[in-house]
């Protein structure tokens, strides 16, 4: 289990690495990171559970239109 401080450090490292890869390549960076972490976890059951956890959040928050902020329409209405 990561400590708060370790989580903080790896989170920041991921942010910087992603920023470095440039906006166009960010989804690919994240996909590679997901695949490499799957290899590290090495447990199909846990990976399946994690994929489901991420998917359930997709349903919870409405997808955003690129370049716009969710809620703009709400304010107009």
């Amino acid at each position, binding site marked *: 289990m990561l400590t*708060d401080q370790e*989580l*903080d450090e790896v*989170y*920041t490292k*991921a*942010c*910087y690495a*992603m*920023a470095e*890869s440039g*906006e166009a390549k*960010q989804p690919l960076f994240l996909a590679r990171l997901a695949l490499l972490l799957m290899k590290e976890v090495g447990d199909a059951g846990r990976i399946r559970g994690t994929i489901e956890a991420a998917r359930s*959040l997709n349903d*919870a*928050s409405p997808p955003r239109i690129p370049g716009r*902020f*969710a*809620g*703009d329409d*709400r*304010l107009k209405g």
Partner: protein
Amino acid sequence: MSAAPGYHEYFEYRRYPLRVPALAGGADPVRHPVAIVGGGPIGLALALGLARHGVRSVVIEADDAVSYGSRAACISRRSLEILDALGVAGDVLVEALPWTAGTSYYRDVPVYRLQMPMDGNQRFAPMVNLEQCMCEQLFADRAERLSDLIEIRWQTKVAGVTPGAGGVELALETAQGPYRLRADWVVACDGARSAVRQAMGLRFSGSTYDGTYIIVDIHLKSDYPTERRAWFDPPTNPGSTILVHKQPRDIWRVDYQLRDDEDPEEAVKPENVLPRVRSHLRWIGERDDWTPVWISAYRANCLTLERYDHGRVLFAGDAAHLVPIFGVRGMNSGIDDTHNLAWKLAWVVQGRSPARLLESYSSERVFAARENIRHASKSTEFMAPPSGAFQLMREAALGLATTDPFFATLINPRQTSAITFADSPLNAADSEALPAGPVPGAVLAECPIGTAAGGRHLTELLGPGYTALCLTADDPRPSLAALRDLPLSVVWIAPRKTAGADRWDTTGRLFPLYGAAPSACYLVRPDGHVAGRWREPRAVQVGSAVRRALR
């Protein structure tokens, strides 16, 4: 400066007159031991600190009153300990609002509960809110009561700085004409746009974040408790981050982040600011009318001078370093600068220590500035993501935090805490492996103690010199008697109420907290940092540690 038309004023400002001394050949005939440039919180705290050591100073302030506008708002526990040593904590606490907690929301869901360290050992709340301008007024009032040691020259600007080997000459400008002032030492406490720093051609190094925050103070009556509230992507300001802090006298601080596609110059106009504040206040349930007090734009800076000692000119506070506001390390780190500097400069002025002692001021406080910048940068990167990558990761973290507390720690605003100087030249070697307690370079952990005069706290026992805190069953004074010529006071704290001991561990928590099993001796510097610690008070070790500051 004062309130804009239709705006509420923080408090009734006191205006101070210009006073020019009787001049001799265009110069102040008095040669001052210390001239402090800037009468803000840092300059005034330093003047109060020097006065505590009996050193006179003259404070040069360009304005005719304390500052106006929204600046520092939170005073940390460590700063309160320092203000107590300066004799102003009582005045501050009468006005200030103490707080310990906060809530962060993602849209309208609470995702993180901030709980600052608070337990029965503490003397002060972890944080109190007080507008900087009111804080400055309390400092100025205190300085006025010490007028034999502190003279504030209001309405006086520094136009030039001429450093020499034995002192510094300042060229001053006033409405009654210019004059020169000579001082043995000059300390620049004149803020982010320091005239002294510019006159000496010194430059900051570091970085600046692009994101802009709008900072608004308003006057609003609300009985919502004092805590820190942060909203990420609230429905009232989609894509933005909003912070709300309660301050004394019905002032509320509202900070919000501008989106990248907004023009800061347009966004800071009242017609663009006030509707956004209004919509947010209504959404969080504030129904009463309110009045604006102050609006400004802010950008986070991570900048510091490479050193703070330049011959006989020293730098402190924002004149020396700029730290992002997130985590409240601005004024608090400046107050820490003054507490580190006051005793060292006093001892140099009094001939007790060589000027070399001031090198440790620079190295310790430059280290502190870099540590503060490192922590504040993390807060800033979360509060104002510097690029799309940070924004996307934050959105993911906030979303996960709504259901999984594991991710909530990423939302922690990482509030200021005292910096440990592990590599200070003033530290004695830590060779006796005490099982607990602050290491050399750290500040004390607070703890109640019993005294014949009633309950006190450990940090109240520190005097203007070094203090040997001796946690032991036997009177330590005979062992340290050989040190009576040093600037050292010996404080005996017995494990329990004991005949002859003036102080004792009243809770049973002090001895374990300091690893005193069965005894310990902590040597503490005048600024509250531990200089050395041993299992027993021994004159050779304590004396040699104190002498590190004297030779």
